[in-house]
């Protein structure tokens, strides 16, 4: 099997993740979308590593997985904090990023 199906899968995953990030109203849903996008990247990395017979891609993927775990932990902690302060995790209400 060539490289192309993996890349298509990764592109689909990425698009689904982006769609989730942009459309989900729940902050946790947005975090899940981000996870999907990151995993699409991982799929790409592994596929290219296999294709080029270069283990560097695998190592990158391992790094990405561990960093993703940290990111999710941090993101969830922030979401919990926001919930405590504002009693909501609806993304539309979280408009504090104004200049």
């Amino acid at each position, binding site marked *: 099997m060539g490289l192309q199906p993996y890349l298509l899968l990764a592109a689909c995953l990425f698009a689904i993740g*982006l769609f989730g990030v*942009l459309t989900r109203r729940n902050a946790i849903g*947005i975090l899940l979308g981000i996870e999907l996008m990151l995993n699409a990247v991982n799929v790409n990395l592994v596929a290219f590593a296999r294709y080029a017979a270069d283990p560097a891609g695998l190592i990158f993927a391992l790094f990405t997985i561990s960093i993703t775990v940290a990111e999710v932990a941090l993101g969830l902690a922030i979401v919990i904090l926001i919930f405590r302060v504002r009693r909501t995790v609806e*993304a539309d209400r*979280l*408009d*504090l*990023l*104004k200049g």
Partner: protein
Amino acid sequence: MNDAGTLALAALGLPLCAFVLLAVVAPLRRAGKAAGALGIAAIGGALVAALVLWRSGQGVELAWSWLPAEGGPMATVGILVDPVAAVMLVLVALVSFLVQLYSLGYLEHETGPALGRYYAYHSLFAVSMIGLVLAGNFLQMFIFWELVGLCSYLLIGFWYDKPEAARAAVKAFWTTKVGDLGFIIGIVLLWGRAGTFTFSELFKMAGDGTLAPDGLGLVMFLIYLGAVGKSAQFPLHVWLPDAMEGPTPVSALIHAATMVAAGVYLVTRAYPLFLLTPDVLALIGWVGAFTALLAAVLGLVQADIKRVLAYSTVSQLGYMMAALGAGALGAGFFHLLTHGLFKALLFLGAGAVIHAVGTNDVWRMGRLGGAMPQTAIVFLVGTLALAGIWPLAGFFSKDAVLAGVWEGGLTVPFLMLALTVFLTAFYMFRVVFLVFFGAGRAEGHPHDPPVSMSLPLWTLAGLTVGVGGYFALRGGGQEGHGPGWIPWVSSALAVAGIVCAWVTYQKQAVSAETLARIFAPLYTAAQRKFWLDDFYGAVYRGGFLALSRLVGWVDRYLVDGLVNWASAWTLRVGDRLRRIQTGRAQDYLYGVAFGLLLVIVWSYWP
């Protein structure tokens, strides 16, 4: 640097030190009397230096390079001491010293800070005037020329909370500026032709004919304009009578003896250049004579004692200019010196009267001769000198001027000046009779001034008599080579003027009203100052103000309008754009994704 250079620099430096000290050390300035003592000490030192320099008879020219340029400096700063500068320096330092001394008594009721300010200005004036006299080139002279103008403005407006004084100060400043504009343009044009500002080099070029005479007339006329403004020649004489709003000692120093003579000094200084342009010299003569006559007529109708003296100053400056224009350089300068002495004396005497009576109006004075004998005597000495009575200083200088103008072939100006002799005697003795004798009665209890005021008066009176006596013993003035009948005619005219004044104002055989009725058109015209002030006012309002309104409209509605329109639109567009910043992370991500999409599409576009 030799002795003369050191002395000249000392005369310049001492008042400068006094000014800097008074300007910087505020407690000293606020002390008032102490500030006065410092100013007087400094100018006294300068006077000693000037006297030593004058007696030594040494000349010196020092120059340091300034404004570096390729092929030598563009200009120099320096000192030029020649006989003319030395004697002028003595006059300036002497009158400044006496006036500063006099001011201590005259302004005794001023507060400390005001007095300190007064002496700071006076010291600055002394620096500027001495610098003007000693300047070795046109550029430096112009700088000091402007500085004396500034001091004049500051001192006329010394009582700046008085609206008339403030207005007079501004008027003096702007009117002289009209002339100064010509002066600077003239200097620059001259530089363009000769490539130097320095007097000695210019005179050398004028002497050996390397300065092209064609077109030089305009240049010299422009330089002469500076003198017209400063020396209050027609038609820019209107500021000097108004300048009398300043304290009387200021009028004596700046507006009688020194600063207004700067124009005459300028023409004297640049005389070798003026000699190349006979047309301009003739103009100087005619304008001078006309100014003398016009101002004398104006002086006849003034009720303010200082204004009479102011018009008299304008008139005498006209004499000096007429002499210079006729080619009698020595006579004009001689008259400048003697006039400086006796006109300062007259102003200081008038100041003593004003100080005692508390008014400037001659109609509210009278019979002060008994109450103020000292003042009356010195004032009479000054008046006789101004009228040109033998053997006082004014007699010799005035005859030298008349002889010079006659010799110069300017017959009509000579007749004007001769008529002015009569008018001068008349208007001055009108004042004398009204103030010191006459029928009127002054209010209060006038008395002679304190010694700090009477000492300068007696010194100046002594000098006026002494200089006259010196020439009487020597038998004639410096340029007494005119026709022999001139002294007799001028004396007869002066005596006639005195007699007429006596008949009119003392005996009252002819009432002043009758005279006014006989000369009704002239009287009305003189009362209205020949409509010159009205004319300038109309030109100012109708011309300059209208133009400024137009320019103001363009600025406000076209230039500013464009800027305002641009800023208003920026605000409006910014207000619209503000809405896209929602603060929601997802909206921003939309932006990022959309941008990414655009980049991808753009990079893959065929």
